[in-house]
């Protein structure tokens, strides 16, 4: 394992720690201020500090130290966790996140001077423990802190009230004098342990250190308790101490209190009792039985092997690509066999099933929980709250919903904008809310769920809703809609996505620059998704993003236009029909409309748009496909025939050729032909735009 690998693991552990700390801070803000919640914040920050020190991230270490000092005061009940203190802790948390981002290389090192001095001031307001006070007698606290034991009479007295539920390895290490003489430097061993688990915690017992007059430099006075993640193999820990004499061997055991006097560590001890344990029976009862008895069933399967494997993303993408090729080859094979009249239906069905299974597995590997995106939202809300003076309660649901990694990477920006928009424009000021008979604190709900082969992400606020009169006036003012246009409520709501639209009277740095919502729609559309709004004046608005599960494979309808085969993504298709002559109405010399259920929809000939001359021009003999678009609502595409409906593997045109307007990509069909995948949105917009210009001329 290289230093870089270890650093990467440290960063991952930082992320996890930050997540735990943020959840706990929010829980505290919501009134859940029990010892365990406060402790979990402290532990997370403490772990990050430890790793930062080990890797020489000075700025991070210094900041976490300040942060930890205040947290320790809270934990030790030296001060109460009031709203003002929570605000400081939350701001400090955000800065801590920035520090971690800086190490990752995602951002510059933050300027933490203001918040640092605020933390220092906060810490100074209570009685900071001076070195003299450290010698206070050991107290039976719920957190084992050897610092507190300095000066205590009984060096080995352990607290008995520990109630831990996590599965960690506890390494109790008290080197004998001989170990020091033989080069067993504990600090170097601790560095090796930190390499196994950069987020380990180290507690040192200094109680046995004498005064200078009886000090013997050859003696060993210190003891350590090191807590490592249960995911580290016990053998790997024991191996580090292998060369030490017997009297300096550490005791390694699961969690805290079950110190088994007789337990000796052997490097290759790989039995069930070597599991980290998650529970605590009283020490007396436990001495007689192996700790595995107290472990939950889930842990008895052998945790020495890691339950997860880290895989390079390139390898994963190659797998997905190869599976895509397999899908294509399988379709080719099927076509060839049917052409030869070979009867291999059973085998082909089985191959088809297996290919789909393999494809699903490969796609699942790329899927990640949306949590990584959602976890950034609380901070955005806090920042907008601070800038606007609004008060918002954020409720998050469905964080574990999985979607494709690429979608996750690209959904952050649009989502950020929607959240800012909801708080900045949706939620009213506290006094306005109270006047409207609502609670002073606004509510923003963020949720994600799978529905019908798509992912729905919703941002819902209970604010004032869209002011339709104002939106319409603004849109007319800016020439986005004609002065005499009559729009439905829904159409007015969707005007906020129009390019250059903004109702904000003051341009703020939060939202309201007039580009945001337009960009949201574009970004979502680029992912093959759609965004929609529902809004009720006075009650709030809901923005819904509907996204595809994956960007690599799509359900497509294969249609013939002239001699060409094209693919229409099924997500846009509403219905297909062969019209009767009465349903098609000529509209000027070149255009026609389809009457369907009392509505007239423009018919757009795909062949014309793509320059395919042999395509049918008579709607009465063609197949009409009603598609839904964001910009133009329902429109009708005219094709010659529908050939098939199947999953297609999307190949990027940009990678292999160049971007072509109106074409979303290409795929390889069963017979080896390349078929273009139509970008329904862009193509219909282009045709309609051309017609609008012709009509104006």
């Amino acid at each position, binding site marked *: 394992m290289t230093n870089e690998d270890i650093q990467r693991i440290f960063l991952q552990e930082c992320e996890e720690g930050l997540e735990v700390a943020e959840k706990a801070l929010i829980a505290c803000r919501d009134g859940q201020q029990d010892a365990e919640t406060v402790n979990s914040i402290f532990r997370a920050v403490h772990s990050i500090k430890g790793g930062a020190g080990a890797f020489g991230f000075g700025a991070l270490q210094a900041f976490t130290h300040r942060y930890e000092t205040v947290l320790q005061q809270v934990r030790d009940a030296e001060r109460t966790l009031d709203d003002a203190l929570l605000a400081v802790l939350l701001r400090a948390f955000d800065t801590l996140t920035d520090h971690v981002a800086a190490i990752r290389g995602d951002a510059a090192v933050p300027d933490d001077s203001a918040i640092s001095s605020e933390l220092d001031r906060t810490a100074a307001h209570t009685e900071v423990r001076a*070195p003299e006070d450290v010698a206070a007698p050991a107290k039976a606290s719920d957190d084992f802190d050897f610092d507190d034991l300095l000066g205590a009479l009984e060096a080995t007295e352990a607290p008995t009230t520990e109630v831990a539920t996590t599965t960690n390895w506890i390494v109790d290490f008290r080197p004998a004098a001989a170990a020091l003489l033989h080069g067993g430097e504990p600090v170097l061993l*601790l560095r090796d342990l930190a390499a196994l688990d950069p987020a380990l915690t*180290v*507690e040192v017992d200094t109680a046995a*250190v004498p*005064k200078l007059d009886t*000090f013997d430099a050859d003696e060993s*006075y210190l003891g350590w308790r090191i807590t490592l993640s249960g995911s580290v193999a016990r053998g790997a820990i024991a191996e580090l101490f292998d060369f030490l004499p017997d009297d300096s061997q550490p005791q390694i055991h699961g969690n805290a209190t079950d110190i088994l006097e007789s337990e000796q560590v052997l490097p290759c001890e790989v039995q069930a009792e070597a599991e980290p344990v998650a529970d605590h029976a009283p020490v007396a009862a436990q001495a007689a039985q192996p700790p595995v008895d107290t472990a939950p069933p889930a842990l008895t399967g052998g945790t020495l092997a890691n339950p997860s494997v880290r895989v390079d993303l390139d390898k994963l993408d190659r797998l997905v690509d190869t599976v895509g090729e397999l899908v294509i080859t399988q379709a080719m094979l099927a076509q060839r066999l049917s052409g030869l009249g070979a009867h291999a239906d059973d085998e082909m069905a089985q191959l088809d099933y297996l290919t789909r299974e393999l494809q699903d597995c490969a796609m699942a590997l790329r899927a990640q929980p949306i949590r990584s995106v959602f976890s950034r939202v609380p901070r955005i809300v806090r920042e907008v709250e601070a800038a606007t003076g609004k008060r918002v309660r954020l409720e998050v649901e469905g964080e574990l919903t999985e979607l494709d990694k690429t979608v996750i990477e690209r959904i952050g920006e649009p989502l950020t904008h929607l959240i800012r928009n909801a708080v900045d424009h949706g939620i009213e000021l506290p006094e306005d809310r109270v006047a409207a008979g609502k609670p002073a604190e606004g509510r923003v709900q963020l949720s994600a769920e799978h529905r019908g082969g798509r992912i729905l992400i919703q941002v819902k606020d209970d604010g004032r809703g869209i002011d339709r009169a104002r939106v319409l006036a603004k849109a007319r003012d800016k020439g986005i809609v004609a002065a005499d246009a009559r729009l439905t409520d829904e159409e007015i709501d969707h005007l906020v996505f129009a390019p250059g639209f903004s109702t904000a009277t003051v341009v703020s740095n939060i939202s309201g620059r007039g580009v945001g919502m337009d960009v949201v729609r574009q970004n979502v559309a680029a992912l093959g998704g759609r965004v929609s709004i529902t809004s009720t004046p006075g009650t709030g608005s809901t923005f819904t993003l509907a996204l595809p599960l994956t960007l690599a494979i799509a359900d497509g309808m294969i249609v013939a236009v002239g001699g060409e085969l094209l693919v229409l993504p099924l997500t846009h298709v509403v219905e297909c029909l062969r019209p009767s002559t009465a349903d098609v109405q000529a509209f000027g010399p070149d255009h026609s409309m389809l009457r369907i259920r009392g509505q007239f929809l423009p018919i757009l000939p795909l062949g014309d748009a793509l320059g395919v001359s042999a395509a049918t021009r008579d709607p009465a003999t063609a197949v009409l496909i009603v598609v839904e678009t964001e910009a133009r609502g329902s429109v009708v595409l005219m094709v010659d025939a529908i050939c098939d409906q199947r999953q297609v593997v999307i190949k990027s045109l940009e990678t292999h050729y160049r971007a072509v307007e109106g074409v979303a990509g290409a795929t390889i069909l069963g017979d080896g032909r390349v078929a273009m995948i139509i970008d329904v949105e862009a193509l219909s917009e282009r045709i309609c735009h051309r017609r609008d210009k012709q009509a104006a001329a």
Partner: protein
Amino acid sequence: MIMNPWTLPARLDRAAAAALAPQWADAMPDSGAVTIDASAVERIGQAGWQVLLSAMRTAKAKGTTLRITGSSPAMIESATLAGLADLLEECT
């Protein structure tokens, strides 16, 4: 008699600790303040920390304030690894 501030050597190992302990025991005043300059430290392990902790304990017993100043990066790194960073910070 050693001068205030007491300077730590670059290599604070067992031999250095053995040499410093009797010097410090003699030099520790009965009140007032002692400053230990840790800026030169390049290597410090258990033996070094033990003699420093012993000095802290002796100072505390006498009611003397002991400060450690200018801790070098190596010193801070070692303190963090050994779980002594808080204690070092409190003496800084």
